[in-house]
């Protein structure tokens, strides 16, 4: 039993006895609610009220591949609901609100629903990236193929071949992003790079040559496709016409996260969290080393490394949480005002935020804390 687990049991017992006895500890924002007993999981998402953890067991091997797994936990108390095992380590994952889709190094696509139902399909090569939207799951493989499956049944809908990357760099492999009736695919060889946008039936809506492959996956949100090639760029989803370019974010490499109403896109970079208006690409605000230095009086911005690792917008749309490596967990309003800061909450990954819970990775497990 880990130290976290012991504390969970102790806190639970204290809370239960306290509730019965009329006394005890009433947790505040940031206090731990529960943690999972298992370790090793790192990729976690919240789907339909269930926490999904993507993990693997390096001590067990099948056909020279470690055993990968998707475990499901209740959000209420972290109880494990089930575990679905497959061959190979997960290379990418995506969800459509009903399933978690996982691509593996062993050329499989695995889908697991909140109730535990699952299907597995095989593709030609190891999976490079996965995206899901509109009842479809899209997979880009190391062999340059794009395959679309029915999200519910796993039946293949269509597939396409792209030029096989000649550069062994991973960034040239097809990277897919989907949403709102379209699929965006970034691919490249050593000679050319391109952004293709498809309709759900596989027909090409438009394509756009790129100077270089994108940083991270393309995103489709509303009627806009967002791509990060040198700068953050927005295109009309249907026509491909450029909408705006934000030149204030040079080579943004953090994952894009959108506010609930879609009006703000958040980009966590190592030294800043940047909020950009999706309507015109204008920067709304940023929390960076300079602002952090102002909070920590007596230190200059040059001494400080924010170490932002992830941003998760709150489901109510009114705030966003920022996870950092060295300075704790922050909550900002949509106007950039600091609402809450707990410097003790340094952790590697911030996974999900609900109305009353924050889920992140602990030392060895998944941890849920009160908001």
């Amino acid at each position: 039993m880990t130290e976290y687990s012991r504390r969970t049991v102790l806190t639970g017992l204290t809370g239960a006895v306290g509730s019965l006895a009329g006394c005890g500890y009433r947790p505040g924002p940031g206090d731990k609610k529960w943690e999972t007993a298992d370790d090793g999981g790192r990729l976690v998402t919240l789907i339909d009220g269930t926490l999904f953890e993507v993990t693997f067991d390096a001590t067990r091997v099948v056909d020279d591949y470690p055993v990968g797994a998707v475990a499901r936990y209740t959000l209420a108390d972290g109880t494990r609901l089930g575990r679905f095992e497959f061959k190979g380590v997960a290379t990418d994952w995506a969800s459509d609100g009903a399933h978690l889709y996982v691509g593996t190094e062993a050329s499989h696509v695995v889908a697991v629903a909140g109730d535990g139902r699952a299907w597995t399909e095989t593709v030609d090569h190891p999976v490079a990236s996965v995206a899901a939207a509109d009842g479809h799951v899209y997979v880009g493989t190391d062999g340059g193929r794009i395959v679309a499956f029915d999200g519910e049944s796993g039946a293949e809908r269509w597939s396409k071949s792209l030029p096989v990357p000649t550069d062994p760099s991973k960034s040239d492999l097809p990277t897919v992003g989907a949403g709102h009736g379209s699929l965006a695919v970034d691919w490249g060889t050593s000679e050319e790079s391109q952004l293709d946008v498809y309709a759900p039936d596989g027909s090409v809506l438009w394509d756009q040559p790129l100077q270089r492959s994108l940083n991270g996956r393309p995103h489709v949100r509303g009627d806009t496709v967002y791509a990060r090639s040198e700068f953050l760029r927005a295109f009309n989803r249907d026509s491909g016409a450029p909408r705006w370019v934000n030149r204030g974010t040079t080579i943004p490499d953090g994952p894009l996260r959108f506010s609930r109403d879609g009006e703000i896109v958040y980009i966590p970079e190592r030294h800043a969290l940047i909020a950009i208006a999706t309507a015109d690409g204008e920067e709304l605000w940023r929390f960076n080393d300079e602002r952090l230095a102002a909070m920590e009086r007596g230190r200059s911005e040059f001494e400080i490394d924010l170490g932002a690792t992830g941003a998760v917008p709150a489901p109510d749309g009114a705030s966003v949480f920022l996870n950092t490596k060295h300075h704790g967990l922050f909550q900002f309003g949509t106007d950039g005002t600091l609402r809450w800061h707990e410097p003790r909450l340094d952790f590697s990954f911030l996974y999900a935020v609900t109305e009353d819970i924050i889920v992140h990775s602990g030392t060895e497990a998944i941890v849920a804390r009160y908001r």
Partner: protein
Amino acid sequence: MATAVVLVGLLPVGFVYAGLTLVNTAGIWLAKLATDWVLAGGFYIEPWLVAGGVVVGFAAQLAVGDTIALRALDARPVGPDDEPGLVENVTRLAQSVNLPAPAVAIADSDAPNAFTVGRSPDSATLVLTTGLLDALDDDERDAVIAHELAHIKNRDATVMSLSYVLPTLTYSLAASTLGLLQAIPGAFTGFRHTDSDSARGLLLGTFILTVSALLTLAVSAVFWLASFTLFRVLSRYREYAADRGAVAITGDPAALASALATIDDEMAAAPDHDLRAQDGGLDALYIAPIDETQFKDAPDFVANDVFPQTHPPTEARIERLEAMATEGPT
């Protein structure tokens, strides 16, 4: 008086909430110092639980307080067969004020004194020391018995027992904490050859223990001072009332004045161990006070003379009784 009685009930509640506040401020700060826990919340206790705890504490004191007091003095119950004259007098005087005759017990002690214990007139026990029975004549003894019956009639034993709960609790806590503080330096002298992490942990542990003990001591001491002062003020007030009650029963203030004078004289000559046997909360119930300065080798937690005495000065009581003898009771 009503204010004082309300305070007897409210002080324990205040003590609980003061402790809770301390835990939620300094306690959480210290816990954060020692761990990486967030601890953004706070400890709580429902008001009904505090009220219930105080009621249970009071009930326990009433249930077992008299037994403990009698055992502490090794008082032996006596009946009509053992002390026919004494028991008959107690019964007669009790009947004269419509009280059920209390049980009578005698404690072997050269210190002349008397007190009553019991949660109600029905369960009261009148305790007399052998020193008192030897020192007083019959009229003086009746006056003392009447004084104690007045205490029973006024339910003083009940009130005083309740008012002594918090001083006992806070004194015990403060004394234990003081003992802990004194033990801290010695407890860590063996850890001299440790690595830097262990040394840091040891230093932190010592700091946390010391600060916790100091704060606990401070809160306990403050509430002990308050509750003990209240206890003594209450006791002092009720002695005058019991003196007046005794005169109403016997109609002989001079006998009680004479008894008090005799007891005061005899008490000064009583051996230390007999006086010590009577110390400890019961002193508020005695007919005459034990003067702590009588103890020749008595170091104390806090000098007793900073508190109001449990009893008014015997001279003042005698003066009042002599005035009653001249003018009649008021």
